[in-house]
């Protein structure tokens, strides 16, 4: 049986575009590659939160799923994979400042596909 869906964690430092420059750039690079167009109808509506640990070079050391909005295990898996795919692609395009490594070495990323855009 899949675990029960639970509400998302509190946003303690929600970096929107007006946040630090590296966060704005990272956010833009990840969201532009976050594609839910090939997911099941349930997965495409599933919100997932990932905890990510990065190396000083900006490479992924670890990712783990910490939250899902659905009890559907398959949908969670597909949504998690789509988020990881976007994270990898977004990081390749980003230049995280080494001097601010302490700020970004661990991140909590929530992918909330409430609305979509057609391209």
């Amino acid at each position, binding site marked *: 049986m899949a675990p029960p869906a639970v509400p998302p964690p509190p946003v303690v430092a929600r970096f929107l575009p007006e946040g630090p420059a590296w966060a704005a750039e990272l956010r833009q690079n990840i*969201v532009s590659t976050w594609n839910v167009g*090939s997911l099941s109808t349930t997965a495409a509506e599933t919100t997932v939160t990932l905890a990510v640990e990065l190396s000083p070079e900006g490479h992924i050391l670890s990712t783990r799923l910490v939250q899902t909005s659905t009890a559907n295990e398959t949908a969670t898996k597909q949504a998690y994979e789509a988020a990881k795919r976007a994270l990898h692609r977004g990081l390749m395009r980003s230049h995280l400042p080494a001097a601010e490594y302490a700020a970004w070495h661990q991140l909590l*990323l929530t992918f909330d*596909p409430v609305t979509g855009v057609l*391209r």
Partner: protein
Amino acid sequence: MKHPFLAALMVAFATLASPVLAEEPHIVFDNPVIEPMPFALPVFSGGGDAAANITQVISADLTGTGLFREIPSSAYISGVSSFDAPIAYKDWQAINAQVLITGNVQASGGKIVVKFRLYDVFTGQPMGDGLQFAGSDKSWRRMAHKVADAVYSRITGEGPYFDSRVLFVSETGSKDARQKRLGVMDYDGANVQYLTDSKSIVLSPRFSPDGSKILFTSYATGFPRIYLMNTRDLSTRMLDDQPGSMTFAPRFAPDGHTVIFSLEKDGNSDLYTYDTNSGATSQLTNAPSIETAPSYSPDGKYITFESDRSGSQQIYVMPAGGGEPNRISSGKGKYANPVWSPRGDYIAFTKIADGRFYIGVIRPDGSDERLLTSSFLDEGPTWAPNGRVIMFTRESEGAAGSASLYSVDISGRNLHQVPTPSAASDPAWSPLLP
């Protein structure tokens, strides 16, 4: 046994209360991109026509969903020299392939073995261990569909549907002297076979839940009567011949032996069931209105059907054993041909309003009605085995107008015509093949 992904999830939840998380910067993403996923599919190794043909069918299956887009081989930086060769992820990342499918085909002695692997290009990881299918070389298309089904399900999370067949009514001749016969084909229009001749008009073919039997309505006696065909030897028998009545709109219950249908007698039609094991008939409705087009919920507990008891054709849901029906359609116009999705979440229907026909879906409780198509005449929806795609009949306008089969994703996207050798109507999707 605990599923490894579930175990990972539980570990993840256990760490949620960690104080470390509360100090991490939190970035929220919304407004994702919705576009087909680019994939690379080098021709499977092993050589020969079989490898090329199988690769082509896999590509057509995936791109035909509208959820995937194939990157042309002319864009490839590197190839895949052999099935076990290491993957040059950076070369596939450079052309923006998000997944890579590699495979190998071995043919000998009338048998072929197809194996494949799937890679997530940007995470640089294989997606699972790969799979292998073996069979007769004559079934190469089925093996291609099975590979495509595995890829599709692994990436989307939807159930498979490419390895399935579709019954349809083949139509030839002019509009006022049309000849109709039953046909069956792969879901993509390949491998057409005809099951009846054109001597009698046939309508409403339906597969049994295991695909071993077919119900259809025939005018062989001059009046509509329901027939049951065995798909193994095409032997056919008439069901429940009650003199002075007409029977039509048959459909199997999920139990595979109960048939629900409409019976018209003395100008009134009601819903009945017929047990193909015992021959027992039961009447489910008894109203002066027209009750027809019944369809079971996948758990067999409910029936949806159309009735004009309110003054116009509308869709109703009632318990499978009969009882008070609940009207679920409430929009402008008339509603017909309700068909319950195999995953139970929606009922597909035909809608007629303002002189146009629509195919739509609605929740079984009457909420969330959405129209997916619109034309001069769209009707007769049937669900793919995974409940994600709907096929239906579209008839063009005018004296020269004819019927064709179309399919559409339940999102309303990816409307396209299904190729058939002649005009075709009344599609009925099979379950996934065994």
